[in-house]
């Protein structure tokens, strides 16, 4: 885990400047050339107005975070230079439009490169509108990207918009490339080429979730638009029909989850996706799915709450709700992906878990993950294994739908595991179910003993899932060597925390860590092991104000924390922005300093 070659380019300008398009073209080109790519962008809730950022980090090896300060700033307006110019690293470059008046200040050791985007666009296309493609070209030219690959990406991006648009953008791109290549010397020290130049898939977290659903066998999706989750629905609307599936836009989130429950009852793998406000509306029917043991997946792309909050901002504030926020005690699983590739993998796990254990699963993504683009190895797709649910088959002695012994949908098993589901249309399997407490057949039953047994059944199920997950984790995520300093984080923050950890390691501070993707039920055995290997300080990073994950750890592992005298130190942030690695590092160092911890002690 040593830091390898990487480089960060920041595109910034007005929301009308086409920043996102420009960034996507550059990022897609990089991915096709074999770079690992990791992007980050902001855009405002209000449709127009305000500055927009698209940051692209490219690396020779897989990247786990967006990085810190940019090496190259491609500023489309003065404001961008004003805001970001001072952050550019020494040795870096600021590409900017001609100054209208005094130049903006730029950091020491940073090269300023003036490019008249508008004029170049005008000269090439007769309109200033393609100035963003000029800028993209400049950046790629500077970095020595292959021009033909970039041109092909531009062509594909604008396909369907007509020949004129394509020609104009290709022309603008070429003009930019010329300018960039001319100044290439300035970037000589930054530039590097990818070690394995094979094309990689570049996709956003939302796209990865949607692709994961498709790969895992989801064939029914019902949803309702909401930022920042809508793209999952939109992508599936386009792709599901190609494999005979259905995406249906419902009247609201309650209907979305109701429809998924219906489709899943019918034997079709189902999913919905939403953000916080939608999750709140889904809570009642999530309980129905838990009670009736209906497999399904709810994706919650978290955004800053509470209430409508800040729809375009980052947060990890829905964990308590996802894990425990139901009336009554609903069995359910909560998973949280940490990277775009993970969005794909954890979605597959979510669907598989739902069907193997007949339980609703919540996948907690978040805003920064949803719109970030990252490269994934195409091989990922070939190795996944969708869980094939076996359904109840009518018994041989069934007589026209009336088997000798009626089907027990909720037959008791000592391990809490479910029996095969009878799917409507199957002779002999007719049963009734719903949200009432019930007996083994599914019929309402409020007898105290039956009730207690059913409560136990649901708890045993959770237990079985936890044990199952622990096995997965043992192979997927073997614990790193023990150390007195430990780090835990989850979701999008986990990958930033990992990078912080690498940076600290480079400075000689070793930490052990565990970044769980499975948040509920908790993988107790793994966490207990992690906690009992000489840990003294446990840092927990998360993007909320009430330390939700840290609280869950404290509540659950009180005895261990006590016995081993471990202090849990929360590193939280609640301003709507993701962590940066530098920020986490600094705050860990500060906390250690406050406790008089010296680096020497670290290698005990």
């Amino acid at each position, binding site marked *: 885990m040593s830091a390898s070659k990487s480089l960060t380019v920041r595109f910034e300008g007005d929301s009308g400047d086409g920043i996102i398009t420009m960034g996507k073209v550059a990022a897609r080109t990089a991915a*096709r050339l074999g770079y690992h790519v990791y992007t980050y962008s902001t855009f405002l809730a209000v449709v127009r107005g305000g500055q927009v950022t698209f940051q692209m980090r490219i690396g020779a090896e897989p990247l786990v975070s967006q990085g810190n300060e940019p090496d190259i700033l491609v500023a489309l307006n003065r404001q961008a230079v004003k805001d970001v110019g001072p952050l550019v690293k020494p040795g870096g470059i600021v590409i900017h439009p001609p100054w209208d008046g005094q130049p903006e200040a730029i950091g020491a050791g940073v090269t300023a490169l003036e490019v008249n985007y508008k004029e170049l666009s005008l000269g090439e296309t007769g309109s200033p509108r393609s100035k963003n493609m000029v800028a993209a070209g400049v950046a790629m030219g500077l970095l020595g990207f292959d021009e033909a690959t970039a041109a092909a990406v531009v062509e594909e991006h604008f396909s369907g918009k007509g020949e004129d648009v394509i020609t104009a953008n290709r022309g603008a791109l070429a003009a930019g490339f010329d300018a960039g290549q001319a100044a290439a010397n300035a970037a000589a020290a930054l530039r590097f080429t990818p070690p394995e130049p094979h*094309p*990689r*898939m*570049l996709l956003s977290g939302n*796209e990865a979730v949607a*692709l994961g659903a*498709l*790969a895992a066998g989801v*064939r*029914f999706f*019902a949803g309702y638009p909401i930022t920042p989750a809508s793209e999952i629905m939109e992508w599936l609307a386009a*792709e599901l*029909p*190609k*494999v*005979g599936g*259905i995406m*249906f836009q*419902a*009247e*609201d989130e*309650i*209907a979305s*989850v*109701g*429809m*998924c*429950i*219906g*489709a899943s*009852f*019918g*034997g*079709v793998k*189902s999913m919905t996706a939403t953000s916080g406000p939608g999750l709140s509306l889904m809570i*009642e029917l999530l309980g*129905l799915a838990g009670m*009736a043991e209906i497999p399904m997946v709810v994706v919650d792309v978290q955004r800053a709450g509470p209430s409508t909050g800040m729809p375009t901002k980052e947060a990890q504030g829905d964990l308590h709700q996802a894990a425990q926020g139901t009336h009554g005690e609903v069995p359910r699983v909560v998973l949280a992906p940490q990277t775009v590739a993970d969005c794909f993998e954890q979605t597959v796990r979510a669907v598989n878990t739902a069907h193997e254990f007949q339980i609703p699963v919540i996948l907690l993504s978040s805003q920064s993950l949803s719109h970030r683009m990252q490269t*994934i190895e*195409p091989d990922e*797709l*070939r190795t996944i294994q969708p869980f094939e649910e076996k359904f109840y088959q009518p018994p041989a002695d069934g007589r*026209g*739908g009336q088997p000798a012994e009626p089907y027990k949908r909720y037959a008791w098993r000592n391990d809490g595991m479910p029996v095969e589901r*009878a799917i*409507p*249309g*199957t*002779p002999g*399997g*007719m*049963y*009734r*179910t*719903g*949200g*009432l407490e019930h007996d083994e057949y599914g*019929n*309402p039953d409020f007898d105290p003993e039956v009730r207690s047994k059913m409560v136990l059944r649901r708890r045993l199920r959770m237990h079985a899932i936890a044990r199952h997950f622990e096995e997965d984790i043992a192979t997927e995520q073997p614990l790193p060597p023990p150390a007195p300093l430990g780090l835990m984080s989850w979701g999008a923050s986990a990958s930033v925390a990992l990078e912080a950890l690498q940076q600290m390691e480079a400075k000689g501070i070793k930490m052990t860590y565990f970044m769980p993707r499975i948040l509920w039920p908790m993988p107790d055995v793994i966490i207990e092991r992690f906690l009992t290997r000489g840990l003294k300080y446990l840092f927990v990073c998360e993007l909320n104000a009430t330390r939700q994950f840290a609280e869950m750890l404290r509540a659950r592992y009180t005895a261990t924390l006590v016995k081993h005298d471990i202090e849990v130190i929360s590193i939280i942030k609640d301003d709507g922005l993701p962590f940066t690695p530098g920020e986490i590092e600094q705050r860990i160092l500060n906390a250690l300093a406050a406790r008089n911890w010296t680096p020497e002690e670290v290698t005990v």
Partner: protein
Amino acid sequence: MTPDTATAAPAAGSAAAKSSYKGSRPTWCPGCGDYGVLACLDKALQAYGRPEWEVVVVSGIGCSSRFPFFMNTYGFHSAHGRALTVATGLKLARPDLTVVCTGGDGDALAIGGNHFFHTMRRNVDLTYILMDNQIYGMTKGQTAPTSAVGMETKSSPYGNVEPPVDPCWAALTMGATFVAQTASHDPAQMTALILEALRHPGMAFVNCLSPCVTFNEVMDKEYFKAHGDPLPPDWDPSDFEAAIRLLRNAGDRFPLGLIHRRIEPTLGQRVENITNRIRAQAGEADVLSIARQFL
């Protein structure tokens, strides 16, 4: 795959019609109108002729919503007001099944009103049997959206202040393509109308006047009998505007019979058309070929 024709026969490979589709003994109060509705749905299903394992009864919560437990088909007793969401998802995913919704006036039109609204306009191929008792039975007697202005209930001790919803009017104006009204005191008519509804390709709504003998003393069997008006013999169910006029001017009378029916593409058909078109275009698409767009 879907029985989307007016005279859908049992699906190939099905057993012969069952002699009874009833399940365990109902727990309704003696005299409750819902017993009659249960008997009629049973008879209608016998005539319809699909085996019980290809029928799903979906409900919300309420006395009337206990229905699925009293049937020997597949059944889903969902959450209050949400029957139509579950039924729509099921029918979209499994167009081969016969899906029947049952519920009360509160379940359908108070908390479930939005799903009612949208399901009607979508023309989902479902049969919805509403047991209209003008009261909340299960929760012991509060005002329902169908309760008359001035009606005294536990929750409106000084008289209800809201103009009631006429379920047939709501279904008709929201877009249902089959709207009928009947009463549990006329099992022959009710059975016939439910059978028609089962056969209708699209959203079929049947309002069943079904007295709550325990919590609605006013709207009892006698009341419904006295206030029911069979449709004239020459009634033309295809005349939408006539249906509108009929219901608009009904006052405190209940027109009984098949009020409106028309044929329009169902939601399932529209969705299937798209799937067929796209699959034809996309050819042998699978995850790998679809993922190529990200390269």
